[in-house]
């Protein structure tokens, strides 16, 4: 125990004394949190549209007004020629062309039916889908509007036989940010703890100080604990501070128990730290360990369900996610913070992580050789 204290003291002095790393460790994650949460949004607003109104009737103008009045759209330009709009689409100045053909109002009056064209830049398939959905929404609203106007209110009586009502639980304002904050927090905590541990031992190897430690009678487990604890503490501190920021700046609800959250996070961090140490032990240079770590990170982050739900992933991906620690915490942290899930809801994940932690730490202890 005493030996571990000396190790810890040394690690902390080194970390706190490092004038370049310390600000990076402390500030970077929070700047990132604030920026990235704002960046990571699918909320659509100010979609640039280009209007080609070849009809110029009161009906077509009414529809264009509806688009203009919507907070989702911004009128980028208008003309009578679709080609002008296409030009804007090519240069990315507009995302959609609303093309109302000549005779639009006449068709609508005579045949009760008229069509118009939506030309959408679909390179980003997700965004295009949403743009189309919003447009359909406006158009069907306008449909209703003219139906009432033209039939003097008769149509309004004709209600739908099946009434669909919906309610959004846990997040009635549909705030995407409160979903992203916990996710990005997980990523930041993971990056910090994984990279710092992974680089730590390799650094001592490169500097030659590891030799000096290896000739001392220090026990394997003492060494491992001495190397793990500082980063565990730093990571937990970052999580706490990140949650505070999330609460203050982004209004992230903290519905569930923080004790459960921190308990799970400790276990999770043991998995990550053990893994980091293991990588560090099998690598010869900081460059190499950084690259290997980076590879696993990228794969695990993308598959963790941070941006897209794991439910949409194919079966094999979900099988891979069984060994993806980030996926566990990603799921748990959102459940606890946003829905108030308790330990009873997450015990399965918790025990999986616990087993994982034993494996990963075991691997780290086993692979740490005092003898080359």
């Amino acid at each position: 125990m005493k030996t571990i204290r000396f190790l810890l003291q040394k690690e902390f002095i080194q970390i706190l004394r490092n004038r370049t790393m310390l600000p990076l460790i402390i500030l970077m994650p929070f700047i990132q949190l604030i920026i990235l949460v704002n960046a990571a949004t699918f909320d659509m607003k100010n979609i640039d549209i280009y209007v080609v109104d070849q009809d110029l009737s009161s009906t077509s103008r009414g529809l264009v007004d509806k688009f203009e009045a919507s907070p989702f759209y911004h009128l980028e330009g208008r003309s009578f020629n679709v080609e002008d709009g296409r030009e804007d689409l090519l240069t990315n100045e507009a995302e959609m062309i609303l093309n109302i053909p000549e005779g639009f109002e006449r068709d609508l009056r005579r045949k009760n039916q008229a069509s118009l064209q939506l030309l959408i830049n679909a390179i980003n398939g997700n965004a295009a889908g949403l743009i189309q959905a919003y447009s359909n929404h406006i158009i069907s609203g306008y449909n209703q509007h003219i139906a009432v106007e033209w039939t003097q209110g008769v149509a309004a009586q004709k209600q739908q036989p099946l009434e669909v009502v919906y309610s959004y639980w846990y997040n009635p304002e549909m705030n995407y940010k409160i979903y992203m904050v916990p996710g990005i927090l997980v990523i930041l905590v993971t990056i910090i703890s994984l990279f710092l541990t992974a680089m730590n031992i390799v650094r001592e190897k490169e500097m030659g100080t590891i030799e000096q430690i290896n000739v001392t009678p220090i026990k394997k487990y003492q060494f491992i604990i001495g190397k793990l604890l500082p980063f565990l503490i730093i990571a937990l501190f970052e999580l706490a501070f990140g949650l505070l920021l999330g609460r203050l700046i982004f209004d992230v609800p903290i519905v569930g128990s923080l004790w459960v959250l921190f308990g799970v996070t400790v276990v999770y961090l043991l998995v990550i730290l053990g893994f980091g140490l293991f990588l560090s032990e099998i690598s010869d240079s900081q460059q190499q360990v950084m690259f290997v770590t980076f590879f696993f990170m990228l794969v695990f982050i993308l598959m963790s369900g941070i941006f897209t739900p794991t439910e949409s992933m194919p079966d094999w991906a979900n099988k891979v996610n069984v060994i993806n620690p980030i996926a566990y915490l990603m799921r748990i942290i959102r459940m606890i913070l946003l829905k108030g899930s308790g330990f009873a809801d997450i015990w399965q994940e918790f025990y999986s992580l616990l087993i994982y932690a034993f494996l990963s730490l075991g691997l780290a202890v086993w692979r740490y050789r005092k003898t080359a």
Partner: protein
Amino acid sequence: MITARNMVKKFGHFIANDHLTFQVRKGEIFGFLGANGAGKTTAMRILCGLSAPTSGEISVAGYNVYRQKEKIKRSIGYMSQKFSLYEDLTVRENFRFYGGIYGLPRKRIRERTAYLLEKLNFSHAIDKKIAQIPLGWKQKLAFSIAIIHSPRIVFLDEPTSGVDPITRRQFWEMIYETASREVTVFVTTHYMDEAEYCNRVSIMDQGRIEALDTPARLKEKYQAANMNQVFVQIAR
């Protein structure tokens, strides 16, 4: 204190140590000489428990290097060829850290630090960071740290490479002083003048020990004026 019989270390097909046999007595200064790549460092790493031998009967401080590695580590000090103090820690912090992982009580660490720095005449720089200290002093500090836990044997791997003649001289005075207190010193070097300071030397070439005796007798045997000539004859 150290006994090796037919010590062999192979890396694949490369034989780094080819049946080395030697004994080092208590309080002796034992020089391990040889050109670069002769196998000196490999042998030393085995004796320190940093590397496992391929075969041979070896014991250090009465312990077996195969089974009692951790017991050996308690009885030895080691100063590696690569510089081994933490650059970003102060002198005091380096002493405290290494003393701590050898399990010394805090009081004892303070006493030893004060004593060793006193002898070096370096007490004034106790709170300086290692990075700000010149190389010669760093080497002397590294040696002091290698003996902070009062080991019975201390291994020095080319301790004086790259330092000026005056510092080398002072360094050897430290070695003598240490040996005078019944501590065995096992030192590798490629400075032949330093070999003269050793009680006995062994000269290695291509993994084998080619000669082992006191400097005086070696000079006599090879009819040389100094150790340098002895070495050149053997290595040729």
